């Protein structure tokens, strides 16, 4: 698959999820086994009272989304893989004024399980805000809801929810 094909699949996947649309989480880059997402600065996530950046949990949502998207870049066909386990280490407090980026990699694909790792950063990828590892279960026998697959794989009858 080309980078454009991966990017199309990932973008359709994100756009099909109401919560991703609500937060404006979007794809920056996709390639084989890897995806970069961004969470833009937005008023609904900024507190007028607390002076420190308190995304309080939204970083977790971003990491979960990116790890999941990276699995789309590691599989030939779209498979809806539920998260089995997610672990996040928070290394520093992010700045309120800058977007959060997350680079996620699906580094191992087995018959049943996918393994991912991700790092969250702002201005410098070498100074991560957080690291995360996750595992995803592949559906048994590759069976998934065909309606959702059509939506993500695109094609003539693809419509974005």
């Amino acid at each position, binding site marked *: 698959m080309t980078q454009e094909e991966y990017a199309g699949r990932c973008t359709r996947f994100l756009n099909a999820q109401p919560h991703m649309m609500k937060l404006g989480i979007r794809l920056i880059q996709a390639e084989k086994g890897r995806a970069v997402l961004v969470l833009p600065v937005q008023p609904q996530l900024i507190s007028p009272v607390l002076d*420190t950046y308190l995304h*309080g949990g*939204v970083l977790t949502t971003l990491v*979960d989304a990116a790890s999941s998207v990276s699995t789309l870049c590691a599989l030939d066909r779209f498979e809806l893989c539920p998260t089995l386990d*997610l672990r996040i280490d928070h290394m520093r407090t992010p700045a309120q004024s800058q977007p959060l980026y997350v680079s996620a990699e699906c580094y191992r694909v087995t018959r049943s399980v996918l393994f991912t790792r991700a790092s969250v950063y702002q201005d410098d990828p070498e100074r991560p805000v957080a690291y995360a590892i996750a595992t995803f279960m592949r559906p048994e026998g590759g069976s998934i*809801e065909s309606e959702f697959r059509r939506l993500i794989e695109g094609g003539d009858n693809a419509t974005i929810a």
Partner: protein
Amino acid sequence: MQQLLELVRQAQESGDYQPLVDLIPYARVLGVQCECYGEEIIFRLPANPGNIGNPTIPAIHGGVIASFMELTALFQLTLQLSQPGLAKIIDFSLDYMRAGLDRDTFAICDVSRQGRRVGNCSVLAWQERKSKPIAQARAHFLLDAGTLMPVQR
């Protein structure tokens, strides 16, 4: 800091923790609610179309469930601290056990140890029945007075 102190005091007096929860922007975006039953605080995430991840099932976004549980731990700890401030997350580890369907989700946090510097939390989330959890999580928070996030005004 004064405002948070005041909010925590008011919450403990009145049993209404909602103003505290509403301090965190993302908790408001998700629609997190807080209900107090005696000594137990149960957090509720009402069904909300904006929280959906998979629209075909439909199911709540996995990240929403994770964040809801992280916020549950944060609030529970904040309410227990002798010196009010928001604890700072160190790490968060989550097991997803069942799909979170498009209905109300509940979470409860057990602070298994609250030391001088670190708080150890375990969080359980469920929908229909507590005996059938949709996820369980473990988290560590930094409680050092110097690192507690201060509040303006």
